[in-house]
Each structure stands twice: as structure tokens, then as C-alpha cells.
């Protein structure tokens, strides 16, 4: 039996905070470097991702989330900004393995193999909205919790052994 293209594993210990407003002020409040356009800046266990010209996503270990929400709300007090804990609204999968780029390329209109480190690509996978970025050994995919079952299913299906994209 051939190897699967990649191992698909759900990630459940991540907290996520949606931040809207002025990105420089948000990065300042989070105490992190502002991510470049479509970038994701990682600092230790935390990552700050560029989601749109006025939206960022702070990804951090789940236990730190309530405290971070409080700190950010306080730091952005008086400014036109939004801090929302969206951890429970998200489904996260790690796609790890030598064929991880093939798995992504089958589902999203993205050149996964050429995707640089530190770039977050918001796109769709089959029928659902996702965001994808590179991690050690593969990719991390986040989608909405409401489509989490579907996302897991299509990812596992795309990783079936012997279904690589390279000509045999």
C-alpha cells in the first residue's frame, strides 16, 4: 500500500482573535511586527496574519486567548477597532507530508508548490472559504467550523495514496 500524499490532522489547541481597524495600531496593540500585505508574521507561539487592508488575525495558543482579548480591547480602547474571539468559529487542519502541495493544489486555485514562507493566502478549497499558509513540513489550513467536516473530508480525499499530480 502506497503512502498517503500527506497526513491530515485537525488542530484544536489554537486560539484566534479577529482584529479590525488600523493595522499599524493593531500590530502595536498586539506587541508584534505588522505583517506585510498578505503576510503572516510569527513571533514565538503567536502569529499575526494580514487578512484584508483593515483586518488582521492573531493566532495564539488557546489558553492565552481570553487574556489576549482583554489586553487588546484595553490597548485599542478609544480607537475605531474591533477585537473578537473567533476561536470557536474556526476549523484548523495541518497538511503535512511530501505531497502536501499536491493536496492543496487539487482543492484550491493556488500554486501551492510556489507559495513562499510567511505568506497567507485566503482562497477557497472546493466549495468553502479557507486560508492557507506554510508551516514546517507542509501547510496549515483554516476554515469555518460550520464547514469543518467538509473540509476534513475533502482534504483526506485529496491525500489518498497514489493520487499525486506528477505524471507516473
Amino acid at each position, binding site marked *: 500500500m502506497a503512502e498517503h500524499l500527506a497526513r491530515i490532522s485537525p488542530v484544536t489547541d489554537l486560539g484566534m482573535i479577529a482584529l479590525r481597524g488600523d493595522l499599524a495600531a493593531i500590530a502595536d496593540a498586539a506587541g508584534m511586527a505588522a505583517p506585510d*500585505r*498578505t503576510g503572516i508574521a510569527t513571533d514565538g507561539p503567536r502569529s499575526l496574519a494580514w487578512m*484584508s487592508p483593515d483586518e488582521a488575525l492573531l493566532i495564539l495558543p488557546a489558553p492565552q486567548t481570553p487574556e489576549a482579548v482583554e489586553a487588546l480591547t484595553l490597548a485599542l480602547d478609544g480607537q475605531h477597532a474591533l477585537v473578537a474571539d473567533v476561536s470557536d468559529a474556526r476549523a484548523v487542519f495541518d497538511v503535512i507530508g511530501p505531497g502536501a502541495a499536491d493536496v492543496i493544489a487539487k482543492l484550491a*486555485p493556488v500554486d501551492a508548490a510556489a507559495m513562499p514562507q510567511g505568506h497567507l*493566502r*485566503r*482562497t*477557497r478549497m472546493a466549495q468553502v472559504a479557507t486560508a492557507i499558509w506554510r508551516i514546517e513540513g507542509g501547510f496549515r489550513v483554516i476554515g469555518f467550523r460550520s464547514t469543518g467536516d467538509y473540509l476534513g473530508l475533502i482534504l483526506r480525499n485529496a491525500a489518498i495514496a497514489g493520487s499525486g499530480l506528477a505524471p507516473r
Partner: protein
Amino acid sequence: MLILTCPHCGIQAEETELHNGGEAHLKRVGPDGSDEEFEGYMFARRNPRGVHLERWRHAYGCGKWFIAARCTVTLQVFGTYAAQTTTPPDHIVQAVRAARPDWNPTEEGASE
């Protein structure tokens, strides 16, 4: 396959990641307008064979609206620009004129 570059995030988004919003640069008819004018604003849309300015939303990406100038016949894309404009910017007009020298942006929206 239509590929447009979102001016807000720079992503080269493919057609399925985008949502079409129809004709761009419509001028809303206010309370002083006649019923005919409002009907025109509400329903009448240009459907040109050639250069078209149309609204697109980067629905599966940054979620922002932008405007694309493209040819409906050849699918040539002349450029994209932010939706917060009432007329196409100069560089777009120049890009279109490079390929269609007789194109006139001021006639865009005028009845034919």
C-alpha cells in the same frame, strides 16, 4: 478563465474566487429624479461588446470591492483599480487606449 489582480491585496485571483457586481460607475438617482431616471438607474445596464468597466468583489479573499477594465470579447484585462473612484483613473484609460485607440471613457455609461 478570467484572472484579475485584486488592487487591495495584490493577489492574482481566479474567477471562482471573485464575485461579479455588474456595471461600474453607476450614478445613483436621488429623490429629485423622475421615475424613468430611477428605473434606468435601477435596471438598465450596459452590456457592451468590447471594453467594459465592471465591479468585482474579492469574495474568497480580502472581501473588498474593486473595478476591472476588460474586454468582453477577447477577455483581455486592461487593469483593476479601487472601487472608491467615480471615473476610471488615468493609467487605466491609457492602458485601454493602447489597445483600443478610439475608446472614450466619458461615453462609458452613455446610451447608445
